[in-house]
């Protein structure tokens, strides 16, 4: 009995310290929860669940987008009829068509731009909660240099990108849509050139941030990973030089901590990856459906209407593409970063 009590005491002593190191992933926002399974899962199962939920929501999104597209096709048919009237001024037809198309599209474009902007903010906010946990978990696993450099890169690029999106790309998207409408209405070449310039600036600002981030991650991953691996090796050598029993205790303790930190880091990482994807997928489905339907509508309308309204529909689909690009870039930066954190010490 005495020995049993002693054994229980020893076991309790052994259990307590491991609980001291805990890394838990921050909870995903409420909108993203519907895409996440309640049961603990592997990354593959979680991703499959998200895809299943997303596919089930694709149909309503397409139906919603189809309503807008039906209105556009209706407008195109009316314009086509207007064009067939003898002595009808093509400039008037074009102007009327542009105004009608812009009126229908501005409302949905406005709500999708807001949705895109909110998604970027949500992704960034979630990243701000997740990155410190991942940084601490990688540092606990012996990757202090790697975790610090990964955190600096990701947090900085995420903040910059979020700022670029909210303060520059979103307002510029409205300017872009206004220029598209004005250019379509009066067929002014200078306005079209400005429109192309704005699109180029928006596209390249996103591309540039992504290129620099990828370059930074690749370089720091190699350099800091090697530094951490050397530090761990040196620590192991120091332990092996200690008194036999003490050495084995130190070695066991290090191994236990490294393994448990690795497990926690991976589970936090997997949940983080799934949470990021689930935040992004809902708005992606909505915007993607609109983008796809506008592309199809533009193709259909080009058969029987004037050039300007069709071009305007294409420009609006381009704006949808820009929303997809900005949410996709933020999502990709976080995903790449979390994967690098999960890879940990090289």
């Amino acid at each position, binding site marked *: 009995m005495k020995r049993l009590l002693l054994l229980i005491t020893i076991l309790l*002593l052994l259990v307590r310290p491991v609980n001291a190191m805990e890394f838990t992933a921050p909870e995903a926002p409420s909108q993203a929860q519907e895409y996440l399974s309640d049961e603990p899962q592997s990354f593959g199962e979680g991703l499959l669940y998200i895809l299943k939920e997303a596919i089930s929501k694709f149909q309503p999104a397409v139906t919603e987008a189809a309503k807008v597209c039906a209105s556009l096709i209706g407008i195109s048919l009316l314009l086509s009829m207007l064009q067939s009237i003898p002595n009808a001024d093509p400039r008037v037809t074009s102007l009327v068509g542009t105004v009608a198309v812009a009126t229908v599209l501005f409302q949905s474009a406005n709500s999708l731009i807001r949705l895109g902007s909110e998604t970027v903010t949500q992704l960034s906010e979630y990243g701000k909660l997740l990155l410190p946990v991942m940084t601490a978990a990688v540092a606990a696993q012996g990757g202090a240099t790697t975790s610090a450099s990964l955190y600096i890169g990701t*947090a900085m690029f995420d903040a910059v990108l979020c700022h670029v999106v909210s303060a520059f790309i979103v307002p510029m998207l409205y300017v872009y849509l206004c220029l598209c409408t004005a250019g379509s209405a009066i067929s002014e070449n200078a306005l079209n050139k400005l429109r192309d310039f704005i699109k180029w600036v928006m596209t390249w600002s996103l591309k540039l941030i992504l290129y620099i981030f990828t370059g930074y991650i690749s370089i720091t991953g190699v350099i800091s990973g090697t530094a951490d691996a050397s530090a761990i090796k040196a620590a192991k050598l120091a332990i092996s030089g200690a008194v036999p029993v003490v050495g084995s*205790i130190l070695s066991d303790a290090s191994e236990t901590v490294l393994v448990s930190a690795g497990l926690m880091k991976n589970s936090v990482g997997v949940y983080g990856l799934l949470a990021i994807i689930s935040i992004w997928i809902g708005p992606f489905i909505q915007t993607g459906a609109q983008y796809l339907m506008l592309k199809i509508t533009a193709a259909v309308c080009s058969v029987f209407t004037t050039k300007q309204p069709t071009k305007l529909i294409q420009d609006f689909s381009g704006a949808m593409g820009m929303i997809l690009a900005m949410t996709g870039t933020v999502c990709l930066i976080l995903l790449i970063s979390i994967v690098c954190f999960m890879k940990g010490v090289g």
Partner: protein
Amino acid sequence: MEALKEYLISVIAVSVFCAIINSLVGKKGTVAPLLKLVSGIIITITVIKPFIQLRVNGIYDYIESFSNDALYYSQSGENSSAEARIGIIKSKAQAYILDKAASLDVAVEVEVVLTDTEPYVPREVHLHGVVSPYAKKQLSDYIAETFAIGKEAQIWTG
């Protein structure tokens, strides 16, 4: 970013204004080429103005703040790892001593104190309990041999 937005809007506004003026004047006449030149100069000034006034003082503080945060989070991870290791080392060392005490049929309370820095090896041991001189010597020798803790660092109470 606000400045960049204002910059692009000002470039667009100036370009639209110049385009309207040029299209109103037309392409013929003596004023047209002069107006085109003036428009070109105005647009060029608008485009290059922010590059001349560019100041990058704030960017260092901005990057520094991320660096400080990274060090803080990384340090907190290292600390929690160290805490966990300290806990395991302490409890394992105590378990070894308690096991030895049990084999000598002695009931003692043990507390191992570790060094303050890496690699956190046992440096002192506090033992509490009523022990016979023989068992005390046996246990003391065991601690000295196994953990390299000298007798002066073995504090017996009770």
